[in-house]
């Protein structure tokens, strides 16, 4: 899923203060799972904004609504009746949600309320971990299902580097060394031999380095 964090009210206000009516739109998928932009967070943000404006003796129209998914047109259209009466939309979707709203409601300013961070997993309640960079050529099968592109701070293919100490990354104590994880996992699977082989340079053209990616499937088109 996509993991995001909500911005500070001050930063959001800097972007929306110029509007007199704002539609606050949440997304009840990924960003609900990471407690950043779901139904609950949408209501909380709308309330916090109202409070913040009241303190400044301002009273813009603030309406909240939450979509099941903000990155799919079928869902986005469900707020169509609310859009015309608001000057701007404040989105609690990820970056994809914000841009999908902007494509559908092309005459409205769409303002992000979240900072989109990464593709990751809920490791435990309250802890989300980045573990996929979407490089476009999954290599997890060779590395014991631990991604060297994502979990190694240097994206090493033939790691670990000389900065790995006690299973920790040189970048920060709280980052586990991805290569340490790879080795431990392969060791437990009895597949350490996979690491003795030289891994050639990565083809980054399948990643964002090749430009923004797009998947087109004729068999899926209406």
């Amino acid at each position, binding site marked *: 899923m996509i993991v995001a964090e909500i911005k500070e009210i001050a930063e959001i206000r800097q972007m929306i203060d110029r509007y007199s009516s704002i539609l606050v739109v949440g997304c009840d998928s990924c960003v609900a799972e990471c407690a950043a932009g779901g139904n609950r967070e949408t209501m909380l943000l709308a309330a916090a904004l109202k409070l913040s404006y009241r303190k400044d003796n301002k009273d813009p129209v603030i309406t909240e609504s939450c979509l099941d998914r903000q990155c799919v047109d079928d869902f986005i259209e469900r707020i169509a009746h609310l859009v015309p009466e608001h000057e701007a939309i404040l989105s609690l979707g990820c970056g994809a949600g914000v841009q999908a709203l902007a494509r559908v409601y092309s005459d409205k300013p769409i303002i992000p309320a979240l900072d989109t961070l990464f593709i990751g997993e809920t490791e435990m309640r309250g802890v989300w971990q980045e573990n996929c960079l979407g490089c476009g050529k999954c290599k997890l099968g060779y590395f014991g299902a631990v991604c060297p592109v994502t979990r190694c*701070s*240097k*994206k*090493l*293919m*033939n*790691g*670990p*580097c*000389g*900065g*790995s*100490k*006690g*299973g920790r990354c*040189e*970048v*920060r104590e709280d980052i586990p*060394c991805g290569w*340490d994880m790879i*080795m431990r996992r392969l060791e437990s699977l009895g597949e350490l031999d996979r*690491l*003795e082989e*030289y*891994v*050639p*340079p*990565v083809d*980054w053209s399948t990643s964002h380095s090749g430009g923004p990616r797009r998947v087109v499937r004729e068999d899926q088109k209406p």
Partner: protein
Amino acid sequence: MKTESRLEKVLSAGHFAVTAECGPPRGADVSSVEKKGRTLLGCVDAVNVTDNQTAIVRMSSVAACSILKGLGHEPILQMVTRDRNRIALQSDLFGAFALGVCNVLCLTGDHQCFGNQKEAVGVFDLDSIQLVKTVRDMREQGTMIGGTEIQVAPKMFIGAAANPFADPPEWRVVRLAKKVQAGADFIQTQSIFNLDRFEQFMTRARDLGLTEKVSILAGVTPLKSVGMARYMATKVAGMDVPEETINRMAAAPKDKQADEGIRIAVETIQKVREIKGVAGVHLMAIEWEEKVPEILKAAGIPQRAHV
């Protein structure tokens, strides 16, 4: 001989090789490079020129190599993959060779978070082992990555680093083997303070037959003060400075700590020289290059013979 490298000649003649590190300035100050270079003339076989070490912006390694070459030195171009993608790395290899540089040390580099440009993108298009293989393919096949033929391919003597003190220890020699297999001709190790761990590393390397295939130069850094010892023990990635060394530095009076640091470095050189499979020593006297001649003399390493 695979290359025109003086270091290769020294090592293949079986001489105990001596290299030293020379850090370029944080600016375009040619005279400081020349000054450091002059103090090292005649006492080392080759000079390593660091590449924006600890991710702090400095004069480019290629340029500083060229200046040192002009003084009569044999430069070793250090290259990290942190800052340049494969286009820039290969281009700089061509450029360096065109300027007469025929040794390269292939590194991944410290993460940019350590330096003075923490917001920079970390490139890491290649890793150090892939860079070793790239330089080898240039020399042996005359090709660049992807197989395109090179007009006048660089023929470089290829170095790589090894850190016997990083974790997991059992994996360090496997990684060394990978570097050798990828094409490393010589290895320069991380600074050695923990001799026991270094000896264990060398034993494993000998057991795998690696010392027959690659020349290992033992890294030595003289400590200037107990503060530096503590800093290296706690703040520098991949360092192992034992408590014992720190205590020894602390026991010396403040104005004698530098002398104590030099004594430790001298003893380390003498001890590593006795370890089977150690082909030379690599001195990393950080902003203290002028002490290198004195350290080598005290360690009983003679002036460099012409080969």
